[in-house]
């Protein structure tokens, strides 16, 4: 009795479980940041590039 150290004595942030959860939260946020851009509508300029290429190559044929 009384030989075991109490978890509550540990400094804040030393808990590996808490660190793991923080990393998990960071991962979710990171994907959200990336996916927010992925889900944006693609500006017309991008498709224009490929259309122009089409026109050029069919002109060459």
């Amino acid at each position, binding site marked *: 009795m009384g030989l075991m150290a109490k978890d509550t004595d540990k400094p804040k942030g030393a808990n590996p479980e808490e660190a793991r959860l923080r990393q998990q939260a960071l*991962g979710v*946020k990171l*994907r959200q940041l*990336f996916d927010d851009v*992925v889900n944006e509508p693609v500006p017309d300029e991008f498709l224009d*590039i490929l259309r122009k*290429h089409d026109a050029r190559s069919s002109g060459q044929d």
Partner: protein
Amino acid sequence: MDQGSEAQFKRELVALIPHLRAFARTLCGDAAAADDLAQDAVMKAWDARASYQMGTNMKAWTFMILRNQFYSEKRRSWRQTQLDQEAAERTLVAIDDPSAPLALDELRQALGMLPSEQREALILVGAGGFAYEEAAEICGCAVGTVKSRVSRARRALQAILEQGDYRRDGLPASDAMRSILSDAERLSQPR
């Protein structure tokens, strides 16, 4: 490349545009510059279509093109270091704002403070859905290097974001931020 393969190549390339834009955004920070970069990459990929082997990983192939484009431009640009410095200063300003900014904005700014090779490794693996092996191929480095960059990036991000919290508890943000920046710099030095 016959017409059928070319049409298929184009379909796949178009489907990848949103992902290329997202990757470019994390490399450049600035949305307009990122779209310019992504457009250049799309053009380069289209021009290089004959050298692409159908059935291989087109996403990794296009990401590699975009990344190479980014670094060849960066080499030519004397403004890069200055821009990173500005990113760091903007972050300090934002964190000093008591009307607490969105967590996503904080993360975006914290990402901007990481050395670019750590940032890209973390984005590719943590958000882009690439395996370590694929990320290594895209970045042209060893798998172990990618792994260590990802874990350094995670630690550094966590530290930056946590320091932001401490700041709200009343500790000076600038000192903490300076030490993180120098940590990040030290960690990024080749051994």
